């Protein structure tokens, strides 16, 4: 009797060791990506030339973040097969066996619907429709259709990640203008060099998963050249933004410094051979990737500073 009960408890403990916790469901929402969504959407909302009730503004950012998280869950549901193969993603809740794919899909769909409806009710229908389009674009156009089809997958995925500041702006104003699209273009052009640098030093991951990353389809030399071209175009755009309605002296200073550093990094990456990179364990590529994180954060931070200075008559060029 005692033996039987001992065995039963052992089996039970072993059988439920991998049971999902609340944190595993939260991890389906890709909290790190969500933090970028929250920050850029907040900048979009605060840079808009209208005042927003703080509670409404908070709700708008929350629902945009939930919408972003929902698309992350749907992405994990669809990509569970390749996540299982890649080193970087094999610890995610579905490949690690903690959450069933169907659960992730249900959570993603439920949160998508909830976030879109709530954003439309909290702000305006235009913002809700924009969020719905962003989720559709990321999940259907990028994840389901083009990610496994074209080496330009990162460029397309970058578009989905670039929408939050536009949604934030639309949530505040209910209308559209050039400035949110400059913020969109900043994130859009930043994404390819950011991810291609990652692909250079996460060498076999995408290859093993069969994802047509540029490093796999066109080779590592072509990827290095692509990083330089995109960084040069990004620099023109980022510095040019300084002279728009969301720019100003603070932004211009930040943009000049960061783009000089970013261009220098991209130039060094383009000049390196694989032997150089292997010799120092991709030091330059890793450094460029880290700088890219700071690059986007500080550009949006500078836009935010300009917006926050405006009530005191200091922000912008006036």
């Amino acid at each position, binding site marked *: 009797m005692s033996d039987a009960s001992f065995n039963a408890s052992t089996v*039970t403990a072993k059988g*439920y060791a991998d*049971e*999902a*916790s*609340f*944190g595993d*469901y*939260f991890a389906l929402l890709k909290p790190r990506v969500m933090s970028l969504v929250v920050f850029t959407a907040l900048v979009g909302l605060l840079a808009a030339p209208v005042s927003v*009730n703080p*509670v*409404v503004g908070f*709700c708008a950012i*929350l629902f945009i973040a939930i919408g972003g998280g929902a698309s992350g869950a749907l992405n994990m549901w669809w990509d569970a097969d390749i996540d299982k193969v890649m080193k970087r993603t094999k610890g995610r809740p579905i490949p690690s066996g903690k959450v069933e794919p169907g659960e992730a899909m249900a959570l993603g769909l439920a949160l998508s619907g909830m976030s879109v409806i709530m954003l439309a009710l*909290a702000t305006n229908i235009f913002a809700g429709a924009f969020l719905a389009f962003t989720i559709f674009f990321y999940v259907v156009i990028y994840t389901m259709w083009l990610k496994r089809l074209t080496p330009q997958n990162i460029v397309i995925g970058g578009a989905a990640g670039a929408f939050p500041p536009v949604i934030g702006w639309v949530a505040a104003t209910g209308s559209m203008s050039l400035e949110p699209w400059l913020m969109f273009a900043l994130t859009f052009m930043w994404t390819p060099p950011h991810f291609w640098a990652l692909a250079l030093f996460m060498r076999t991951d995408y290859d093993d998963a069969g994802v047509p990353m540029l490093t796999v389809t066109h080779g590592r030399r072509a990827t290095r050249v692509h990083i330089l071209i995109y960084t040069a175009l990004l620099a023109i755009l980022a510095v040019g933004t300084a002279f728009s309605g969301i720019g100003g002296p603070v932004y211009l200073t930040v943009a000049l410094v960061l783009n000089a550093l970013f261009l220098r990094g991209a130039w060094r990456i383009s000049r390196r051979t694989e032997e150089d990179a292997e010799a120092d364990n991709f030091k330059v590529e890793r450094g460029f990737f880290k700088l890219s994180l700071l690059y986007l954060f500080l550009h949006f931070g500078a836009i935010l500073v300009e917006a926050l200075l405006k009530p005191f008559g200091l922000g912008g060029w006036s």
Partner: protein
Amino acid sequence: MSLRKSHELHHRRFSRNLGVGLTLAAFIVIIFGLTIAKVSSSSFTGPAVEVQN
């Protein structure tokens, strides 16, 4: 028999249930706050009152 009989499942899923409970409670607070913010704004207009003859 006690209505509050504890099961192994209750202990095992405590953190998950607590997380869901707190999330739902936070959602209620947010919706309440949003409603107050909306009806307090100057642009808010209530539904037209129909006069019954």
